């Protein structure tokens, strides 16, 4: 087993993640759970699990990120998920470019410069229609499991237009389409298109620097990747664990600051 050199924890709105890295910055261990409303207890549980795996953590640098980062009292530092995602993705893919991070509560476009430095960012934290929650809500409404969402959408041979610019109203629009006998697949494809078009508008507001990269929980959805490629004309690059990039970046910052 490789020795633990730093830990990063990402207390997000939907999920909580912890990542351990070794001396070389390689991701050697992680845990991921649905976010517990009692974030502090969850963090303690995670740390205990790390302790069981690697022994005492006293000398291990530990950095927190995510919306709940300030709740992590034991962390040596807390850094925004914007910097952490940039660091994590840069370290793994080894190139500057434009990173799209679609999380549960918000979505961000981050322009990454040399060394994983954040050059600029745009953020949608005002409207659920640009976030993972948008897909989650409608997937539930259509009784499609979240994991099958992307595949189902891509299997459609045509596409319905979802014109509502609000998650709640989009949901009623979908109910109405279902009531008119429209199949689930074209509705889902239209839904993904609507989310992607919001993200593309945000990418344009900061200016696309190639390559285009994707992180966050929604990156696992293949329809999002495919449509993002269609809309931007760019190939989308994915890290191995898109959802862990925030915690990974935090651990890397911890490693650097030792």
């Amino acid at each position, binding site marked *: 087993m490789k020795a633990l050199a730093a830990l990063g924890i990402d207390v997000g709105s939907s999920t909580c993640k912890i990542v351990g890295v070794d001396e070389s910055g390689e991701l050697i261990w992680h845990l991921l759970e649905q976010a517990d409303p009692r974030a502090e207890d969850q963090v303690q549980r995670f740390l205990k699990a790390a302790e069981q795996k690697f022994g005492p953590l006293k000398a291990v640098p530990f950095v927190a990120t995510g919306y709940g980062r300030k709740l992590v009292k034991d962390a040596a530092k807390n850094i925004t998920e914007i*910097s952490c995602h940039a660091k994590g993705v840069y370290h793994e893919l080894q190139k500057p470019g434009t990173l799209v991070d679609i999380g549960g509560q918000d979505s961000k476009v981050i322009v990454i410069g040399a060394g994983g430095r954040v050059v600029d960012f745009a953020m949608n934290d005002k409207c659920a229609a640009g976030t993972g929650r948008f897909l989650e809500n409608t997937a539930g409404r259509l009784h499609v499991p979240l994991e099958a969402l992307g595949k189902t959408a891509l299997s459609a041979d045509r596409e319905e237009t979802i014109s509502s610019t609000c998650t709640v109203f989009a949901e009623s629009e979908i109910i109405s389409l279902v009531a008119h006998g429209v199949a689930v697949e074209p509705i889902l494809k239209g839904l993904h298109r609507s989310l992607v078009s919001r993200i593309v508008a945000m990418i344009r507001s900061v200016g696309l620097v190639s390559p285009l990269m994707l992180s966050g929980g929604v990156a696992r959805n293949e329809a999002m990747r495919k449509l993002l490629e269609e809309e931007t004309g760019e190939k989308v690059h994915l890290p191995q664990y898109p959802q862990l990039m925030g915690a990974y970046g935090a651990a890397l910052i911890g490693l650097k600051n030792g």
Partner: protein
Amino acid sequence: MTESITIRGKLRYQLAVNVAGRLTLAFRRRRNERKTARPGWSRDVLAPPLKLSARMKELMSRHYLGGRYANGAKKVAWVTSGAPIEILKALGFYILYPENHAALCGARRKTVEIASEAENAGYSRDICSYARTDIGAVLSGKTPVGRLPRPDVLLACTNICQTVLYWYRVLADYFKVPLILIDTPFIYEEAHAHDVAYVKRQLEDMIPAAEKIAGKKLSFKRLKEVVRFSREASFLWLEVLDRAKHRPSPITAFDGFIHMAPIVDLRGEPVVIDLYRQLLKEIDVRISKGIGAVKHEKKRLLWDNLPIWFKLRKMAQTFAGYGANVVAATYTYAWGELAPMMDETRPLESAAQTYLHPLLNQGTGHKLESMQKMVREFSLDGVVLHSDRSCKPYSLGQIDQRDYFVNHAGIPALLLEADHNDPRSYSDQQAENRIAAFMEILEDSSNAD
């Protein structure tokens, strides 16, 4: 229906404002001046508040107290913030600025309650929160200043936005009083002679209308004096703001937001000149002692747009916590930069010039140039653009302005979405997160240098 001026009304005004009010407010000011600490003030990151704040507060309280007793003692005008008030001032009107009153409601966290009165009456939440606060205050009588005087006349100038046009029509309809409208053509590049002539003509037309309401003739000698006072106060205000060029800066833009009330509400009165002279003295003492308004000033920033009135201190403290001083603001500057255009020897023509040129009556390119100049002159490291949901004309163009700074000038710039007066369009957590990320970029960019 307007109220006539009576001896009883004048007597009541004298007793309440100039005798009882003056004494009580002076007593309160002395008590405030003795206070060394303010609850919630982060002394670890900020220098103590400016001592002169107590004096400024006294001045503004007296102004609003005057408003409470104005009906029956003086003729009252409600005006927009960029209105040419010198003529009204010379005719002895009590002048109320609904925008300043709304900002006061915002700073005292009364907006939601008051604006809801307007929203319940059918005014959309998409309308400017100043307008909603004012209309709500009018409809409900709710105000933190006791009572607002009924207007005898309304003066709206379109040099700040088009909302005022409709807002003041609502007021005119409600109060059944005349509305004087000064239409200022938008300046894309520079003002033409016919633009100036057009505004001047409107000012000339305004005089007999205002005289009729005031019940007296305008004295040009007095008008010239008012213009001189306005000009001098505006120059002093500019000097106050320019002191922020020192490193560390003795003031923050948030100090500017607080201390700009007199140049807006009381310009044309000698008391403002006196106040800003004293403010300069206090600031100069800070400079001579090397006192920075933000302890450990590491980064210097520009603020664009109105402040978030209900989060003034919070914003000051959040930035100061990162060692960042927001030293300059386009908004506070707007009240000083037109000073050179004022000319008492040509009071009407120079007023036409002055009131044609506010920042918001000029193209977005002009604002970008002003910002570039401020970045240079104040040695700034970053720009914070408050995208103000309420103030559309001010927020228009910010995406391009931000793009210029980030991609062409290499200066980090942050778009902060909020509202100048409505806390329902703002989230602490989201704002803090964006500011934290922005500060990390600034920190990183200096490490990379």
